[in-house]
């Protein structure tokens, strides 16, 4: 379904701040698989997701989604294949547009946008039904400005927006990192539900090893722009956070000094 083959990406090449972020990253994901991605700061998690989405075009390597070579395809042309939810609740929605307008934007993701009205009664009906499943009372606030919603509400709506149109893969970039623990738990639960209901292939970046093991079918660890750990099935279900850490240290032969990986 998704095949990333030896991806390389260096930011600011040939300058003193040259930063090789992806160094030969390869990963294959089967259809319907929910993969969690962990790794320390600078491991290349976000860049990898951005490369999949087309925000970043890789220097070398190849990228296939659903058998299509998208290595050089600009981001907006991949939108029919890739849906995403950003870390920053502000980034995934337009705060100056209404809830229904934001949802209408997502409703036409990957489709041709013509001069017909963006909203009509049946679409509003659909949006209302979808919002009602969140149980946040948003179904009565369709014309409200997106900016009036809290961060958690916005992430919940972003998730809904990502599932309005079928996509081949859903990318979640630490989408609960900016939320308080209770809201984060709610959004994660919603994530599980939406991925399950829509049989989505999903890739979720997270800073928390706990989350990485509790959600999805498979966990991948990135380090210095490469996959250093890849567990699934039996091995994974028996695994504890401490095991994950031990395996990480063994693989890399170095101690972890990043607290963020231990906490949470």
């Amino acid at each position: 379904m998704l095949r990333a083959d030896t991806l390389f990406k260096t930011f600011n090449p040939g300058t003193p701040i040259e930063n090789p972020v992806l160094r030969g990253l390869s990963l294959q994901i089967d259809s319907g698989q929910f993969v969690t991605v962990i790794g320390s700061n600078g491991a290349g998690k976000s860049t990898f997701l951005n490369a999949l989405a087309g925000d970043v075009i890789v220097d070398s390597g190849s990228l296939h989604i659903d058998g299509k070579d998208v290595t050089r395809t600009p981001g907006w042309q991949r939108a029919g294949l890739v849906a995403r939810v950003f870390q920053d609740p502000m980034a995934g929605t337009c705060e100056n547009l209404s809830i229904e307008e934001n949802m209408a934007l997502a409703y036409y993701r990957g489709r041709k946008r013509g001069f017909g009205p963006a909203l009509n009664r049946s679409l509003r009906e659909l949006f209302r039904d979808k919002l009602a499943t969140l149980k946040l009372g948003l179904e009565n606030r369709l014309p409200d400005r997106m900016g009036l919603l809290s961060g958690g509400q916005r992430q919940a709506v972003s998730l809904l927006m990502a599932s309005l149109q079928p996509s081949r893969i859903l990318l979640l970039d630490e989408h609960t990192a900016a939320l308080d623990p209770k809201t984060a738990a709610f959004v994660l639960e919603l994530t599980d539900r939406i991925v399950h209901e829509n049989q989505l292939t999903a890739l979720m970046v997270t800073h928390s090893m706990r989350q990485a093991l509790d959600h999805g079918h498979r966990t991948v660890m990135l380090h210095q722009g490469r996959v250093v750990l890849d567990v699934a099935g039996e091995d994974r279900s028996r695994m504890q956070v401490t095991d994950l850490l031990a395996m990480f240290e063994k693989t890399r032969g170095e101690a972890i000094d990043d607290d963020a990986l231990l906490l949470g």
Partner: protein
Amino acid sequence: MTLIALMGALEIGLIFALVALGVLISFRILDFPDLTADGSFPLGGAVAATLIAGGHDPWLACGVAALAGAASGWLTAWLNVRLGILQLLASILVMIALYSINLRIMGAPNMPLIGSPTIFSPFIGDNFDIAWQVQPAMLAALIVVAKLGLDVFFASQAGLAMRATGANARMARAQGIATERMVLAGMALSNALIAVAGALYVQTQGGADVSMGVGTIVVGLAAVIIGETLLPSRTLWVITLATVLGALLYRLLIALALNADFIGLQAQDLNLITALLVGFALVLPKLKAKLARKPGGAR
């Protein structure tokens, strides 16, 4: 102020309402600070005047002016999205270039249109006494059409995509919107409107002049800002309405200030009055908030 002077102010206000709608698209909807207007307004005037003087149909002249304006806006956007030139700078380059181009088009610094047919002349006929009524009436009808047309467009799938491009380009791309194309198209639309305003202006003023564009952008922005202060809203059809009303009110205030003898202002004080008006409109929302806070005490 006489009735004719009032109608004159209304007439120019209506023309600048078109400019203001164009400025609304660039500055507010696309978030693209664009000074091309100072060049595209006289470009529309120059193209229309030259075509009309050459014996062509005035409506056709307006259409060609719109195309010329669209091309200039597209060029500004292209310099920005393709060559990476800063938005403001890209628009200044095009504006400067258009000054020479406008001179080339007209072949002279000005082009009189006295006695030439205009889009208004079939409705005025031989009775020139009614021109001061017919021209504002026709312009009002044109502005209503333009405003409603924009409302319909920005409520459409493509229009919503254009608004998202200006509001959050990264999100727009993630939704599959070709943001670069949206900026190119939006800037073309914006400057097409402004050029049509220029084409209408020369037909009401009896000729084109190469320097007629000076300060166009300031007037357009003034109208947008006054409209926003007058009628603050996030709903698009209210915003376009506020913009049109802002343009009318601006010209009316200018006319009042210049006509009130006791103030002692004269025509050369126009830009000073503009600056004061815009400054006042910018500060007004803050003053209102301050006054609203006072009686209740806290917050």
